[in-house]
């Protein structure tokens, strides 16, 4: 088991090293990606800020609570951009042109070799900014010591829920001819998760908690951090992660069997 983990870590180190080498050789793209992330960050923050110039609360939350939530989601987004986002786009292309053959032939778990292959170093540049704003609004909403200890764990749990949902959806690419649409669907799910669950009506909220549990990504942990009596959704996170892993193994296996290798 331990040697297996060591083996996968050594492979992942190579994945990261090659991704850094590729990304830094196109310097203009590297800089533009940083600017793009900056735009995303500030437009999100200022959209919320402008709304709160005219109202006091949205649902139970004031300006600082919602901005803390937004920073929490942006932090998850930043990690997602660094670790996974490139691999999703690559998957749709490699299924279409058959280059996935070379990936699945490797003596590695295919989920690992498909979704952990690409690393985006440009997004790391802005990570300190995301952390700074998360700490700033965390202080403003009065997080306690235990909350700060729990925060990194919650961010990674939220990220786990997000990517597991996305992995499941991306398995559908094996059944369609053009997989880019699935990637757009994935982006829309992210879009829905970027707002707290209370903005949605009862039916939509139930759907987005049970059927496609994207409200567990940010709403569950942030509600718990701000109000310890709201632990229900937070406790549902590990359950959702286990169920999603189970579903992923089934759909991924079926998807791979359905893959007909365009180039062979």
């Amino acid at each position, binding site marked *: 088991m331990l040697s297996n983990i060591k083996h996968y870590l050594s492979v992942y180190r190579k994945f990261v090293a090659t991704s850094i080498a590729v990304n830094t050789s196109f310097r203009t793209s590297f800089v533009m990606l940083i600017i*793009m992330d900056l735009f995303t960050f500030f437009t999100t923050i200022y959209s919320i800020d402008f709304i709160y110039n005219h109202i006091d609360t949205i649902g139970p939350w004031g300006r600082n609570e919602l901005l803390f939530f937004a920073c929490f989601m942006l932090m998850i987004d930043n990690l997602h951009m660094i670790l996974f986002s490139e691999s999703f786009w690559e998957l749709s292309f490699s299924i279409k042109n058959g280059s996935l053959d070379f990936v699945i032939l490797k003596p590695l778990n295919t989920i690992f070799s498909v979704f952990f292959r690409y690393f985006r170093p440009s997004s790391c540049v802005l990570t300190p900014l995301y952390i700074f704003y998360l700490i700033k609004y965390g202080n403003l909403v009065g997080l306690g010591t235990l909350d700060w200890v729990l925060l990194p764990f919650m961010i990674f749990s939220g990220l786990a829920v997000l990517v597991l949902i996305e992995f499941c959806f991306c398995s559908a690419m094996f059944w369609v001819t053009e997989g880019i649409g699935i990637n757009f669907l994935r982006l829309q799910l992210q879009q829905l998760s970027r707002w707290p669950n209370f903005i949605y009506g009862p039916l*939509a909220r139930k759907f987005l908690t049970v059927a496609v549990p994207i409200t567990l990504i940010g709403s569950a942990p942030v509600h718990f951090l701000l109000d310890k009596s709201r632990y229900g959704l937070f406790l549902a996170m590990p359950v959702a992660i286990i169920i999603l892993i189970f579903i992923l193994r089934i759909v991924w296996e079926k998807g791979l069997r359905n893959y007909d290798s365009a180039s062979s």
Partner: protein
Amino acid sequence: MTNFLKWWQTVKISWVKHTAYRLNFFLQIIGPSLVFFFVKYNLWTSIFEQSATKVIQGYTLDQMLSYHAWAFIISLVAQGHGSWNLSEDIRLGRISSYLIYPFNFWEFHTASFISFQGIQILIAGVTLLFFSYISIISSFSFEVLLTGFTFTLLVSIFWFLTQYFTGLLAFWLEETWILRVMLQIVSVFLSGAIIPLELYPEWFVKILNFTPFPYLSYYPIQIMMGRDVSLVSGVVIICSWIVGLIFINKFIWRRGLRLYTAAGM
């Protein structure tokens, strides 16, 4: 006449290409606008339900929902086209064929844009009927609709030329999708597609008025909602940008061709 036939055939082929993968088309083109509207609908309903005041910067809940319904329809017509293939054509050396064809590169992509607009207008029309049926959009006159629609078509030409411009930069850049996404993020934020410009700080709106962004969403929405806006200045500004972009794109195309290495030939 021969030229018209070439245009017509290209429009027809593009139509077939756009609609070949219907699920993909729905998820890629309609899905984002639909989800964007869904989020805004829920967000503003939630805000107004909690708010003590029933009017926020001149908007009641009904007017706010109507604003975002129009934003949805306008985004379908005005900001749908992405010119995704354009930069790929350049990067992968596919424009070599266009240099030999008796049908130019810009003609091919403009014909593709026209067919795409045809589909989008159809979808926008159905959406408009649906929104009217469920009363999110209240009554509108034919005259207002025609004016708003004409202005939106002008905006769509501007948007196409902007996308064309970013695509042409593939002569110099490895990845142009980043520029397209950046443009999308900035324009959504600055055009009033997320929140009406009345909610932005006044100094900020004054600066924005010197840019084309408010004309992408906010102005067409105001026209469609029958509000008082300076139509002449809007048309003049958008047309000036269109003319400017035509010249810039021509210039970039000529400069870019000098760098073109016809990869894969």
